């Protein structure tokens, strides 16, 4: 391996070991957007105060997410001897004193404990790996989350970081592409297109300079896997882009982060600055003569910039309107030069493939899709969080095991596999796997990993009104089919919800479905997916709304509440309608 890189890694490992052997209690607070929303900054400040006032003799630091988002802030505490460490959840500011008292007394706090993360289980606290939320998970992308400081490049280097890049430095571009192709890595943004082939397109491009773009415009509401990665282990993405740059002879890279993720933007910027400082980015990287510039770019609030050519126009400085393809980005992308766009999670897998080999990487999954996939889940569930699991779990597993089941006492009505364009499916499809094919067969798609579950208190017309309203708002305005079509769909849905549904409305939906597919980009083409899929499986409910003027969930205010409306305020019409 490159001698300079070897030294960086050796120094980082030595520093990490020295830190481990400090003989002090080691406290790590998860500090990300989810935990901050639940008071982690105050929890961290209180723990630091306690350490400063010597109430506890501890080294207090920050780390990324364990995925227990609904139980943030999470805090891990390792004993001074370094033999026993426990992860705690729900350490909100009003409960942090309990933990401080326990640490000061040198004991565990079973009431907040999630599990033992180092050493043996105790009579009161089982191992974390035996926690139902952790069982079945395989944490590769998330391996450092909860353990290292995302703002410290040395922590990353001490845990196998940049080793994949080191290996790639000794390979030619073709061999790197082959390794990624052999792994079977498919694009994680929802398309599933082989990442290695994309890199090969750029490698074979003739013009220069060539650009790499990391699509971190994770706009699907209910999806936050990219945020977890960027806030928890930003160097994984940088290393992935460096490997892609070697594989495709790229000169410059952009990480395009959405405006709603200010902390991810700050962490990514900090990580890029550290990588420059260590000579991992810029000119003559590690003395190899190779150059790669990396720029962290902040979006400004436009969902359609998640479409790769919309994103390219956005960096260009134009309105983020998707282009007409061809030419494809590999031929004419950013500034009309060859460009490759991948999702955050796609790049993040590259270091793992290079470090451990394609065989190791792909062997984890039995599904056609290889490797692990991160999912987040939300809606009417007990636990909204993030997991990493071998590709191909059942939707049921996600709901029952990881999301802890439904939050209310009503039965499941359906779910959305990933994003407002992905469509909705009924509860009877709960045994589908989270792989690409089942959704393609249904004229929809898997999406990028944000699954939303809803129970019978949700109204299908209201849900579609939300999805179509979102698509209308976020339409770039180029195609009449899309910006006009979504407007018509929203008008009809609003009218149905207000009690003005007409017999012709279902036919009108069919017409719109047939029209919007002629839009230029995926946004327009898939904008009607939620209506299209729900018309198949929830048709009765549309008919009830239009003909009987009944909303069974009691959500639509212009209609009589029906049988699932018992949680709504009692209304005189309720009994008659049921």
């Amino acid at each position, binding site marked *: 391996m490159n001698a300079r890189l070897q030294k960086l890694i050796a120094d980082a490992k030595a520093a990490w070991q020295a830190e481990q052997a400090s003989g002090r209690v080691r406290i790590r607070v998860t500090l990300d957007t*989810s935990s901050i929303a639940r008071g982690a900054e105050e929890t961290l400040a209180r723990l630091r105060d306690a350490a400063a006032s010597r109430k506890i003799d501890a080294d207090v630091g920050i780390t990324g997410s364990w995925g227990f988002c609904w139980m943030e802030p999470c805090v891990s505490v390792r004993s001074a001897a370094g033999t026993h460490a426990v992860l705690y959840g729900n350490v909100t500011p009003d409960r942090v004193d309990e933990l401080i008292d326990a640490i000061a007394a040198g004991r565990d706090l079973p009431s907040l404990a999630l599990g033992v993360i180092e050493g043996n289980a105790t009579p009161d606290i089982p191992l974390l790996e035996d926690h139902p939320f952790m069982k079945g998970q395989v944490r590769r992308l998330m391996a450092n989350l909860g353990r290292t400081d995302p703002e410290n490049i040395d922590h990353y280097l001490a845990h196998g970081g940049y080793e994949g890049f080191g290996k790639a430095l000794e390979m030619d571009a073709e061999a790197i592409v082959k390794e990624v192709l052999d792994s079977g890595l498919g694009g994680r943004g929802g398309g599933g297109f082989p990442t290695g082939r994309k890199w090969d397109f750029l490698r074979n491009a003739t013009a220069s300079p060539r650009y790499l773009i990391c699509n971190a415009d994770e706009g699907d509401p209910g999806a*936050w896997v990219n945020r977890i990665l960027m806030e928890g282990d930003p160097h994984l993405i940088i290393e992935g882009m460096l490997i892609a740059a070697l594989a495709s002879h790229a000169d410059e890279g952009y990480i395009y982060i959405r405006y709603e993720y200010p902390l991810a933007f700050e962490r990514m910027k900090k990580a890029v600055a550290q990588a420059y400082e260590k000579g991992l980015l810029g000119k003559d990287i590690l003395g190899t003569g190779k150059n790669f510039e990396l720029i962290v770019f902040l979006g400004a609030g436009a969902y359609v910039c998640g479409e790769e050519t919309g994103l390219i126009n956005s960096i260009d400085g134009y309105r983020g309107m998707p282009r007409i393809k061809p030419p494809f980005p590999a031929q004419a992308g950013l500034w009309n030069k060859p460009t490759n766009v991948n999702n955050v999670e796609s790049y993040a897998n590259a270091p793992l493939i290079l470090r451990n080999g394609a065989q190791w990487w792909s062997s984890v999954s039995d599904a056609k899709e290889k490797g692990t996939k991160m999912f987040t889940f939300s809606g009417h569930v007990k636990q909204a969080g993030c997991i990493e699991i071998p590709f191909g779990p059942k939707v049921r597993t996600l709901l029952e095991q990881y999301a802890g089941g439904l939050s209310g006492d009503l039965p499941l009505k359906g779910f959305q596999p990933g994003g407002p364009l992905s469509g909705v499916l009924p509860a009877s499809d709960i045994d589908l796997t989270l792989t690409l094919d089942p959704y393609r067969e249904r004229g929809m798609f898997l999406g990028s990993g944000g699954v939303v579950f809803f129970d019978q208190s949700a109204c299908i017309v209201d*849900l579609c009104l939300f999805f179509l309203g979102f698509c209308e708002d976020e339409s770039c305005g180029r195609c009449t089919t899309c910006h006009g079509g979504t407007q018509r769909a929203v008008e009809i849905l609003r009218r149905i919800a207000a009690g003005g549904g007409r017999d012709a409305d279902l036919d009108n939906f069919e017409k719109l479905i047939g029209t919007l597919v002629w839009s230029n980009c995926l946004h327009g083409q898939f904008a009607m997916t939620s209506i299209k899929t729900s018309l198949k499986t929830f048709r009765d409910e549309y008919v009830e709304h239009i003909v009987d003027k009944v909303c069974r969930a009691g959500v639509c205010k212009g209609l009589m509440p029906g049988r699932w409306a018992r949680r709504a305020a009692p209304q005189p019409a309720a009994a008659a309608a049921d």
Partner: protein
Amino acid sequence: MAAEPGLQELRELVAEFQPGRGHVLPALHKVQHTYGWVPRAAIEVIARQLNTTPALIYGAVTFYSDFRTHPPAKYEVAWCCGPACRLRGGEAIREAIQEELGIGLDEQTPDHRFGLHVGQCNGTCHEAPQIWVNGRVRGNLTPESARDLIRSLRDGE
């Protein structure tokens, strides 16, 4: 209401940006970060600096929902419109806040203390339904607690 900054001040602020380098959004971000909004004069100054037309800059300002063409209120309330929030009663939160403030989305109270706009999901769905007050998540709301929150801000913390 904040006064519009002078041309010279704006020119110095965006002097680092160059044409053809993807600097439109970074320049607009810097202006909004400095003043809290993008004043009209800044559009022309940025256009000149980047050797392009004010129409292109204005086009970007209006395309992206996070650029403001007016000064922010003291409390900018973003109402999360995501699916988890909606399923957990987000519409009722919006109605309660609108009623409490007497304004609709994308409006400000006459005294410029409160502004209300749509926020896009930031993946803190475990706190649904929620709003963000000046970027800080206030979650697990009920219509009543949302009203109380607005009242406590209005009554001066």
